């Protein structure tokens, strides 16, 4: 009977990155019940790390062997270099997240934590390669549900539960808007696949169709929730603050990669004909994110909230690259994502280390003196802050440079100036972190009790890797931009 159902031919390599992660998730589920508690964490963590490494390797292979993009599995997903590059970044972020998670105090559910990390990573990679409205929604929900649970996994902590619930409700709302928008677009075009939508728009002359435009707007809003762009950012500070820090680290870096890459893809394939509308809309969202993120970050004392607002402002910078709507913008986005993922996950990793050391939330006050006390982590945090602020010698500087260049190439000098102004404002709070690390008077220093640094070699390795990417991307910009250029070549930019 089964044989009589027509099956599409399956391109196994194209789907291997997330299959690897799903396999790892499955194994971790078994670990949860079969492996004794004593070794459970070690086994689950290694399996997860293995899953991310496998996804990384498969994605690299996929990048190498997908010179020309094509739809696979009945055109539901796209096999191209853009998806592969996104998968590489996400898998790398996941791997670092495993190192950051190692010393997180899990109250039970250790293996389940790693299961969800795998499935979230898999969902994000899937989303980045989605090629029709169904797979887009599927991917979005797939990683979102994993993240909802991850945020709330510290079930004994009220704040963690609150974060999970908040994220669930707001995220669910965002998904519903996205789904509604997809339905409207389908209603207008009778097509699900991105290419089909584009073809239908041009053949049926739907450019000014109100149903289609409304659908596009709603899809943008739904994705806006996921990239935490203003004005859809309300959940971000609370969730970032309440979720376990290792989860925040992964979420802040990888979610942006998946959602922004998908945004770039759907806008430039399905809605290329509507570029006159969405470039303006994305630019407006970008400006709003820059304004909200930077101004709100100025008054934050809690470091996780500060970084949450900073991530909103960085969503703004990356949206500028999408709004530029040119190949330079695509390159700028992907380059920025590589650097941003490293900086973001690294910064949260340092926060996680400090939090575990102090046993309380990290604020600008109890960060005082950390730079002298923990030289490695302090110098790393310094590097990340310089990178966020866009100062050389970090990739953050060149990322901004590329983004601004892309905007200027489109002729949007005003957007460049807004970005410059936002950068100037952001300096204040990024430098406030450095000030806390190094410059407080001795009387205000709050050295951690105990004196001995907690031995957390894995986290330090992860942080050093992030520093290496942050600084290395400045010097080795050419190979990274080449990667990005080939990836963007998959899109009709």
């Amino acid at each position, binding site marked *: 009977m089964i044989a009589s159902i027509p099956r599409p031919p399956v391109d196994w390599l194209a789907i291997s990155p997330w299959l690897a992660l799903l396999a790892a998730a499955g194994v971790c589920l078994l670990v949860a019940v079969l492996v004794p508690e004593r070794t459970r964490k070690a086994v689950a963590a290694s399996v997860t790390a293995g899953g991310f490494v496998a996804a990384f390797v498969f994605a690299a292979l996929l990048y190498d062997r997908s010179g020309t993009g094509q739809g696979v599995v009945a055109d539901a997903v796209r096999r191209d270099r853009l998806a592969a590059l996104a998968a590489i970044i996400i898998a790398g972020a996941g791997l670092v997240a495993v190192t950051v998670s190692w010393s997180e105090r899990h109250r039970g559910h250790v293996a389940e934590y790693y299961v969800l990390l795998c499935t979230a990573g898999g969902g994000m990679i899937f989303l980045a390669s989605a090629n029709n409205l169904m797979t887009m929604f599927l991917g979005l929900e797939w990683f979102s549900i994993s993240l909802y649970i991850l945020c709330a996994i510290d079930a004994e902590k009220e704040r963690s539960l609150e974060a999970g619930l908040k994220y669930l409700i707001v995220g669910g709302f965002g998904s519903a808007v996205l789904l509604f928008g997809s339905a409207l677009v389908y209603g207008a075009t009778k097509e699900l696949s991105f290419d089909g939508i584009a073809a239908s728009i041009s053949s049926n002359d739907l450019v000014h169709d109100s149903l289609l435009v409304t659908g596009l707007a709603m899809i943008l809003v739904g994705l806006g929730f996921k990239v935490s762009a203003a004005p859809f950012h309300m959940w971000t500070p609370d969730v970032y603050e309440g979720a376990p820090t290792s989860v925040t680290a992964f979420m802040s870096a990888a979610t942006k990669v998946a959602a922004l890459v998908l945004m770039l893809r759907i806008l430039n394939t399905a809605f290329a004909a509507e570029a006159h509308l969405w470039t303006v809309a994305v630019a407006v969202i970008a400006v709003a994110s820059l304004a909200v993120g930077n101004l709100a970050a100025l008054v934050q004392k809690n470091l996780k909230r500060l970084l949450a607002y900073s991530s909103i402002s960085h969503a703004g910078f990356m949206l500028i690259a999408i709004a530029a709507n040119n190949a*330079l913008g695509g*390159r700028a986005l992907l380059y920025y994502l590589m650097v941003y993922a490293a900086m973001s996950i690294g910064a949260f990793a340092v926060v996680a280390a400090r939090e575990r050391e102090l046993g309380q939330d990290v604020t600008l006050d109890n960060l005082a003196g950390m730079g*002298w006390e923990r030289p490695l982590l302090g*110098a790393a945090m310094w590097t990340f802050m*310089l990178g966020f602020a866009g*100062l*050389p*010698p970090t990739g953050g*500087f060149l990322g901004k*440079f*590329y983004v*601004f*260049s892309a905007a*200027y*190439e489109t002729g949007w*000098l005003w957007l*460049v*100036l807004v970005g*410059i*102004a936002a*950068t*100037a404002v952001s*300096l*204040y709070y990024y*430098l406030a972190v*450095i*000030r806390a690390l*190094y*410059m407080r008077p001795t009387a205000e220093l709050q050295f951690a009790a105990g004196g001995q640094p907690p031995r957390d070699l894995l986290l330090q390795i992860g942080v050093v890797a992030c520093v290496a990417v942050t600084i290395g991307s400045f010097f080795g*910009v*050419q190979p990274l*931009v080449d990667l990005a*250029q080939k990836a963007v070549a998959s899109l009709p930019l």
Partner: protein
Amino acid sequence: MNAHGWITTTLILVPLGGALLIWLIPMPRVWIAPTALLISLFEIAFWIEAVARFDFDKGGLQESSQLTWFTDLGVSYHVGMFEGYTLWLVGLTTVVTAASVAYGVWVGRDRPRAYYGLMLFLTGAIVGVFTAQDLLLFYVFWEAMLIPLYVLIGAWGGPRRLQATITFVVYTMVGSLVMLAAVIVYGLQQGTFSMITGGTSSSDWLFLGFAIAFIVKAPIFPFHGWLPDAYRESPAEVSAVLSGVVSKVAAFGFLRICFSLFPVGVHDFRTPLLVLAAIGLVYGSLLAFRAPDIRGVIAYSSMAQMGLITLGLFATNDLGVDGAVLQMVNHGLISAILFLLAGGIERRAATGQFDRLGGFARGRPALATMLMATGVIALAVPGSTAFAGEFAILAGVFQQGWGYAVVGAIAIVLAAMYVLRMISAVLHEKAGPAVSEAALDLRHAELAIVVPLLALLLFLSAWPAAISDRATSAGAAAGYAQAEEAAK
């Protein structure tokens, strides 16, 4: 890479590599400071080698090397010595930073690993700014200067250092971010960021974008708000670098970038800039005369001198430009000596306030001689190198209007007033409450730091043409003037 240009890259990489060495290689604590000092001395040696290689008659870009950085936007690592003035400013940098590192060793700064690493990093960044031949590279080094300065002031500075760093960073970053926008627009319009192959641009906005950054960094009136706090709260040797070298970066920017790339802007904004420079010159001199402490005098006099140098530059003739370059070196050395001496005085009296100082000359001949000699050169006594520089500047700017020359001449009188006031308040009068009998004269180590700088000043006093005749190749300034004429 062009094999002939290794010396420029070496001059950048030696201090940067030294910084990495100190940060990353574990070594006993006592070795750190001597290592840093040794590296700064090596840097001077490499600079002397660069002077030997440089052909002053030829001018133009020499000792250059180029390496592609990223191609799609046409950015490359391109460094070299453009005209003689670059060479002299790099020399000033190596000498002043070496003296500052030596002073840090003498004072025994705590947290040596971070401290000396940052000092060397700063040196490398400044040399990079002077030698960069690509606008983006220039911007990178320009910003890279800010990072070590921020931490050096913020972590080792005086009690009000946090306010000082915030004002300093906000002022300079706003200036430099505007410059970044100008860099991007210029680079994308020209299709390259190279200062050598990129053509001139007639946009006034681009000129202003760069000029703002330079005006703030110099600083030129009315953008000097960051100056008094930053110069007062920094460690003395960091103030020496700030006032001696970092302010020169701004004047260098006018000369290297604005004159070569934006002749129309230079033409359109010459008068406002000359007027601002003249105001800054007089206003800074008056503030220096009113300042209640040593560092205040040096800080505001530094602002006044930057006004004078800007006058010379915007004269846009050989006389003015060469005089300005000579005066940049003079003032760099003078303010470095003065800040280091001020640091020494503050260590002895625990204050720099004039009302608590006085009578330092009695029983302390070395200190008195050093301060007196430097002060006399600073007030441009005839026969000193500062006199030569100021004379050339005034003669040059006279061609733009006699009024500027008159203002400059008045300012020289004011300079005599504030320098003599400082000398008498510190050295003469009766011993102030903060000056104890036990306060020592300059130690041998301090003399070993200050005397070479003073010797350089005396050498230049004997032979100012060593720099002024070798600052620009023949007719370079005339070339700028012609470009302006053509652009009109």
